[in-house]
């Protein structure tokens, strides 16, 4: 079944959480199962919504999960059911 937008966001945030809250772009690309171009679009959206932050750590670019991102993961089941029920 085709993943919806919130499924993709969930997969990306869950991948970061599973890696202890910090992930490098290559691992995120692999875990989220997206093309590089689509992942960039989603990353921009997640950064815009302050669910993740991009930081430079030891010459490496990493993405960190924020409290907003954790809030999304916590409410995901309700969010998915609500979105599907009302077709949002």
């Amino acid at each position, binding site marked *: 079944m085709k993943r919806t937008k919130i499924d993709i966001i969930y997969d990306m945030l869950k991948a970061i959480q599973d890696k202890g809250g910090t992930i490098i772009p290559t691992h995120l690309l692999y875990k989220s199962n997206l093309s590089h171009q689509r992942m960039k679009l989603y990353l921009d959206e997640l950064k815009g919504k302050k669910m993740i932050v991009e930081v430079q750590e030891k010459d490496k670019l990493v993405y960190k999960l924020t409290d907003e991102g954790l809030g999304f993961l916590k409410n995901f089941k309700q*969010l998915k059911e*609500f979105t*599907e*029920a009302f*077709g949002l």
Partner: protein
Amino acid sequence: MNADALSTKLKSPNAKSAGMLNIYLPRPDWFFGVDATLELFAGIIAILIALVSYKLYRVTHERSYKYFLASFILLGGSFFSRAIADAFLGKFFHVSPHMIGLIFFCGYIGHIFLALAAYLLLIASTYKIEDKRLIVMMFLLLVPALALSGSYFLSFYVVSIILLIFLVWSYAQNCRKVRSVTSTCVFFAFGLLLLAQPQFILDMLSNSWYVTAHVTQAAGYLILLVALLRILLK
């Protein structure tokens, strides 16, 4: 309720008058208060749905959630204003004749405009209409349809039927796509809200339609409450 449409028919014991404005209330006597309670019930459920969508809007920051949230706040406000008007023009409160006109306009006209704005925003969120100008234009198109009408209530229910047909259509498609109990509940709930509208028009013919319309509408909101509880229990 077709209060203005039947303004000249004042033979009923339920009729009240305020200067030039004559208001006919097509309720059976035993239903006084019950209608306001059912409207209050619908308003509370609409506000509960708005609270849950606010929680989810804070998480997602999606525009469709914002419109959805706004639509249920307006729907809640619409039912509260109508419940207050029905209670004041019923037996709960004794108001002076000159107050009746004010209550009528604030309560019922408020109900009409808030409900139509709510349905429009719901259409915007369901059909993913992002452009605010389009939503404003749709709302402005409704204003002359109501203001120039001989009967505010008749126009309101006809416009509501049209808007609800589009919503039910969308929820039917969503229900077929998602195939979950909750989406089916939402489809049936809005189906019942749609069915209630022609019954409100028919209350011109018989008081019993006014009762069945309220019961159908309340059943719709009860099913929405069931859907909401299923979501919260996830």
